[in-house]
């Protein structure tokens, strides 16, 4: 489906964004009161949308294996839980994660393209992508060259995304815009249009290494851009806010925003993910409270 796109869009014609209006809309999503059954459904949906992530220089094979166990067994005290959608690691951990998750229907996502800065040559980025896919990555989370984008070299960024998409083969491509470095919502919108046209399967806010990471404001702009693309073509592009979403309450605000912007068909891990490391345990804590009416100590939930 990405083949149909691949045309450098005219970013000067992208409709402008008014930040005050965006803030107001976001505030309104946050006033939705989600209770009882709808909260329960939402919490389980959040779990199923998580890309459980570890992206540290000190990651070890042991840590990655344990994280994969967590992905499979979120909290066995609570029956009927889903698994997370994917485990997200550095390229050199892909093989280990792949083996640990074999047969459980959980994807392995790998960051690539000189994550998190993207400051490398295109050849190296493509090679890294191919290697990660060869090692078994089902999904590739690439970063865009923010320097080139900010300098207005849109064609360079476009070609790079398109090339990485090609290098992905069957693997799904998530394109990280690193919105914290784009600064304005107008640029977030332009970068979203660019990434979608260049072939992104998902667009993603952040690496988690730059502050601010995901905010509801940038996520809304990206969701609206996905919506415009859908209105025009019928194609469904996915969305992944990443970094800074660590509480159930905030995650549910995101789901409200998703539902009211893109509707029911996007309420699936196939089209929406949370890039998060500590969110899962907060959600589990809420589900446990719904089950037995008490908040448990954090020590009752495994930290991986």
């Amino acid at each position, binding site marked *: 489906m990405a083949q149909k796109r691949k045309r450098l869009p005219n970013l000067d014609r992208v*409709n*402008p*964004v*008014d930040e*005050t*209006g*965006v803030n*107001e*809309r976001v505030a309104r999503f946050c*006033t*939705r*009161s*989600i*209770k*009882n*059954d*709808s*909260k329960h*459904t*939402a919490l389980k*949906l959040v779990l199923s949308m998580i890309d459980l992530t570890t992206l540290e220089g000190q990651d070890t094979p042991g840590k990655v294996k344990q994280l994969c166990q967590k992905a499979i067994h979120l909290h066995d005290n609570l029956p009927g839980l889903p698994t997370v959608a994917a485990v997200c690691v550095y390229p050199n951990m892909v093989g280990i994660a792949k083996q640990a998750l074999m047969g459980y229907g959980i994807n392995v996502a790998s960051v690539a393209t000189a994550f998190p800065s993207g400051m490398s040559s295109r050849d190296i980025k493509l090679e890294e992508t191919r290697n990660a896919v060869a090692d078994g990555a089902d999904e590739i989370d690439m970063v865009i060259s923010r320097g080139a984008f900010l300098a207005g070299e849109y064609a360079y960024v476009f070609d790079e995304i398109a090339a990485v998409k090609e290098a992905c083969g069957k693997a799904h491509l998530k394109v990280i815009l690193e919105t914290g470095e784009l600064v304005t919502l107008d640029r977030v919108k332009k970068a979203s249009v660019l990434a979608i046209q260049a072939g992104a399967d998902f667009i993603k806010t952040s690496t988690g290494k730059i502050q601010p990471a995901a905010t509801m404001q940038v996520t809304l702009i990206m969701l*609206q851009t996905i*919506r*415009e693309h*859908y*209105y*025009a*073509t*019928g194609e469904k592009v996915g969305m992944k806010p990443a970094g800074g979403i660590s509480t159930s309450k905030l995650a549910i605000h995101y*789901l409200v925003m998703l*539902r*009211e912007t*893109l*509707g*029911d*068909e996007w*309420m699936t891990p196939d089209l929406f993910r949370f890039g998060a490391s500590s969110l899962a345990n907060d959600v589990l804590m809420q589900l446990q409270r719904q089950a037995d009416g008490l908040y448990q100590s954090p020590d009752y939930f495994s930290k991986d």
Partner: protein
Amino acid sequence: MSDAHNTLKFDTGWQYAPAPESTDHVRIDKKYGLFINGKFTAPSQGKYFTTSNPATQERLSRIAIAGKSDVNRAVKAARKAYENVWSKMPARERAKYIFRIARGLQERAREFSVIETMDGGKPIRESRDVDIPLAAAHFFYYAGWADKLEYAFPGAGVKSLGVAGQIVPWNFPLLMAAWKIAPALACGNTVVLKPAETTSLTALKLAELIQDIGLPPGVVNIVTGAGATGAALVDHPDVNKIAFTGSTAVGRSIMHSIAGTEKKYTLELGGKAANIIFADAPVDQAVEGVVNAIFFNQGHVCCAGSRLLVQESVADELIHKLKERMHTLILGNPLDKNTDIGAINSRAQLDKINSYLKIGKNEGGNMFQAPCTLPSKGYWCPPTIFTDMAQSNRLVQEEIFGPVLAIQTFRTAAEAVTKANNTPYGLSGGVWTDKGSKIFKVTSALKAGVVWANTFNKFDPTSPFGGYKESGIGREGGAHGLSAYLAMEVNHGR
């Protein structure tokens, strides 16, 4: 992108469970008398009317009907309090009382919000986030002015007027009472207020609050009833000032009755505001602006953006997005925290709105309504838009006071301005464009008292509000709002 018409699905998946605000903490008496001279007293003719919840049609309370003699008692009490207490009190002391009202409203905000929603049908989200906080803000703001009036009008020699008769509408019952009472008291006047017939409860709760904070008796009096009560107040010879918010027809009859008297007056009347959206506007935010402009408070807003003028090149895209957005508006129990669209205030108003829906269809308009299930009891109208409307249509010219939007397209800015100004009204307007210079050019060409740029229906006590033409006379709010309650010894043309 403009002929993109793929649609999204909003009603097949995850829905929000009911989240009703509790009413346990709210006390509504079975019967309310008239608040005169600091006490609730029975009406002289012993007559009461029923006030009910428009969302359920359940009776909430019985409210006294004030006759001429009751209004006379109220005005006398206000005059006595003016002569003996309020006009003699140091301004700084007056301010303390007004501050106390403001704080009292904040402390009891939840109770006031719930009652406002039960009595008027508006969503709790709006009474909680807009009506009640803004009412408190108006008291805070004008309390601050009380001892600084000479600085607002330097050298003018400002003096209070005396007794102010104030008549407020049903769409923002407590907020409109605050708009009227706060500046009147700050300027040293005393007040007789008549709330609207269908929504008297929060004014009566305000009377209780006024008792609790120890405002001297007679400074604020509240007389309830219908049009005849209002007329008795307007016609009373000892009233120095009439402040009215309501329909243009009633405003006109008020002007007739006070012609030739020395009564000062301010009238805040109807409107038929146009929201103008240019092709270079932030479209997604503009869609939200249109929703806030016409569906806020079910369109029961005198400054509602009930007309939409959209530049032809973005019209398709914008209307498509607006329709999709309307799918996500939640209509239902006004006490539910997730409700966006509450009940229509009364049977009479619903009948009026429905008659306009017929008119719009007969005029050849293309009607679209948000697909929502209407509750079986109560008065409801789904959010409605009409496309393909023309300037000569009644739907474009006449105030409906409901969730009904008339959409027209335009090509040039000059055409948009001409159409926007081409109604008997001139209360408000909106302009949407990313270009700063265009904002200044177009807003200055609009003959409307309030014009918003890239937003709509924003209110603040510091900002004056009022209309041109048949939308009224005088300004409320801000420093301008003070002059409506003051006499100037030296007239500087204000």
